[in-house]
């Protein structure tokens, strides 16, 4: 049993942390948020590609570095600490793993490889109205037509859907659920850009008889298992990033408690606030434990993967939210201004706890794991 990152991973964490500190302080996110545009910077994205961060978990054949999901999680934690706005979770984890798990070599060469270099970005379009967090309740249909498919339907809240060059879209086919690669400029595709609660952007998508070539089908239907695996990567990624967010909030809050004075005393000397800070510390520690387990098990294909990922995502939704809400509370008045960064973290954590399934969804899923264990 060994919970240490290996030396390369430790070095990676340090490199990303240094990069974020010097090149991507929170003010950069704030500027991009407040500006017109896609909300992130393609030049930074390309830099990340050059540094190898976008390809680190993927096979060398696809242009990756042949690492594991652990490396992606290590990167995400650091990005979370600094609210880095580039779409790592959306494009590398959700879009990237869909291509890596379901795509053949040609498809990976064509769509994954350029993303790994930061030249393009991806998005996974799976959420639909009325389906809540169930990826298998899909109304989008891909009807066989003219040697390929014709795609019709709608997807909602597609992370990075407004900016992605390719969209990986789930749809039902006569053979069952399938995943397709759709170009952003495909005729019949309408994208509506949305502002999201965390200051990121996303899109609602509408497909009206979008014509797809056979090689836009990723792997074979049914693709429910592969989609579930991708969403588990997404959930574990959200946990890793959320751990970074929560860790930063805890640090900011204990820092504030140690400097802010009221009634002639540092407010961090008040025992009720101290104990609150300890309770936050507890939740962050448990979140870290669960993130460690989830990042390791995400690469496994056994029954423990779902359990570990769901438990981790649940802890983000419960423990992480506790940390987030108490951080705002303990900052007092400035905590509820837009000026102070703590509110930006609060909103990012709120979004991350929804993305890829909220706490209740994952509690239900964990209950199902327990049931199947005992039967």
């Amino acid at each position: 049993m060994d919970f240490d990152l290996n030396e390369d991973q430790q070095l990676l964490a340090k490199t990303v942390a240094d990069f974020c500190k010097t090149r991507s302080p929170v003010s950069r996110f704030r500027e991009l948020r407040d500006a017109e545009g896609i909300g992130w910077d393609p030049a930074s994205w390309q830099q990340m590609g050059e540094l190898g961060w976008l390809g680190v978990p993927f096979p060398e054949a696809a242009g990756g570095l042949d690492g594991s999901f652990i490396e992606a999680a290590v990167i995400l934690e650091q990005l979370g600490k600094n609210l880095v706005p580039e779409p790592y979770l959306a494009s590398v984890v959700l879009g990237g793993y869909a291509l890596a798990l379901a795509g053949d070599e040609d498809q990976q060469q064509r769509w994954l490889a350029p993303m790994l270099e930061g030249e393009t970005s991806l998005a996974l379009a799976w959420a639909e109205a009325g389906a809540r967090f169930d990826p298998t309740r899909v109304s989008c249909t891909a009807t066989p037509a003219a040697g390929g498919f014709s795609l019709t339907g709608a997807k909602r809240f597609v992370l990075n859907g407004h900016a992605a060059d390719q969209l990986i879209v789930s749809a039902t086919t006569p053979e069952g659920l399938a995943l397709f690669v759709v170009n952003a400029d495909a005729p019949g595709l309408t994208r509506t850009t949305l502002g999201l609660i965390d200051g990121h952007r996303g899109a609602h998508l509408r497909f009206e008889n979008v014509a797809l070539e056979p090689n836009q089908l990723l792997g074979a239907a049914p693709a429910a298992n592969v989609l579930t695996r991708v969403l588990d990567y997404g959930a574990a990624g959200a946990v890793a990033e959320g751990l970074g967010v929560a860790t930063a909030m805890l640090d900011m809050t204990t820092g504030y408690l140690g400097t802010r004075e009221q009634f002639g005393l540092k407010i961090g000397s008040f025992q009720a606030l101290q104990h609150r800070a300890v309770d936050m510390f507890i939740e962050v520690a448990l979140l870290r434990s669960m993130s460690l387990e989830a990042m390791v098990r995400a690469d496994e294909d056994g029954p423990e993967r779902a359990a570990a990922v769901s438990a981790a995502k649940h802890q983000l939704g419960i423990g992480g939210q506790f940390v987030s809400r108490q951080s705002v509370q303990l900052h007092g008045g400035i905590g509820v201004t837009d000026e102070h960064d703590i509110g930006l973290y609060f909103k990012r954590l709120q979004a991350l706890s929804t993305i890829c399934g909220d706490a209740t969804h994952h509690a239900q899923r964990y209950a199902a794991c327990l049931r199947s264990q005992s039967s």
Partner: protein
Amino acid sequence: MDLNFTPEEQAFRARVRAWISEALPEDLAVKARASAQFTHDELMRWHKVLAAKGWAAPAWPKSFGGPGFSAAERFIFNEELELAGTPPLSPFGLVMVGPLIQRFGTNAQRERFLPKILSGEEVWCQGYSEPNAGSDLASLRMSAEDRGDYFVVNGQKTWTTYAQYADWIFCLVRTNAAGKKQSGISFLLIDMRSKGLEARPMLTISHSPAFCDTFFDNVEVPKANLLGPLDGGWTLAKALLGHERTLVGSPGLVRRWLRLAREIATEQIGDDGRPLLEDPAWARRFAALEMRLRAHQMTIYRALSEQQKGRHPGPETSILKIVGTDLIQRAGELCMEVMGHDALAWLPDPGVVPDNEAWVGPSFCYDRAATIYAGSNEIQRNIIAKHILQLPSA
């Protein structure tokens, strides 16, 4: 014991309800149903509708232009406004400085200020908190120097809600640096158009421009604008603080949150294919919050019952701020969770999410302030521990 309102009171409620549904402009009614955040202009439009009816200041005595409501009628009136979700009138004139002017003001001050507060012609804001005097209000530093006929005011106020729209600000200022920090504070009424005064709006976490930082650079304030005795402002401040606490425990907002959450939970299909509300686990979560709201409501009624008898509400009602704001947040959190993916939306264009969900995110964020303002819940607990439970000081 009798837990019901009298038939007369119930008839009054029906009259108020009917009038509101008649008088509230349709565009505001739409926002009300979605628990939207109103703009200042919208508040003032509604203020004027109420003022025309004579109902803008339900708690003012008739002699100052109030409607002469009984305690129960006041309560019912406010409850109906809240349930309808009408724009919450700015409290700074009507609820805060108005009653203080009535109690502590000179006749000249009363005549000068009260009618325009009532009509909405003049809008007020509150200058209490400073960057280093929030919970610890008595540490405030903004100074007012005596120059004979006038004071010269220097310093900064913060969290001055809607100062950018205000005509007047009432401020706690330090007129005497000697002695205990609570003494030496005075209460000044200051024209927002004074030279040297600047209000810089700040965005809130919900992205609305609700607060300002307000700067005073050699602002001259006539002595006639001193309310109450020189160096005696702390008495006025305390009178207000107590008042403010009973303001915020009000359950109407919680009820609207829960109504909205229930509406959405009827539409949202859960992972098991049924509407969320048909899932026993969700139903029990709703029930738990509804039951706590009921207990809160009953505790408010107990306070009302005391007031009706002309008694001071018992110590147990000191909890209302804590319980009420905690409920506001929990109900908002539930509403967010019920929305599933839609909770990712932020000030969306029409159609992005169902209309009734459009304002949930910003309101949820804004409600983080509920446990902070008007004496944070931690401060409330300190007060209850000391003054009611009489636990020892360190």
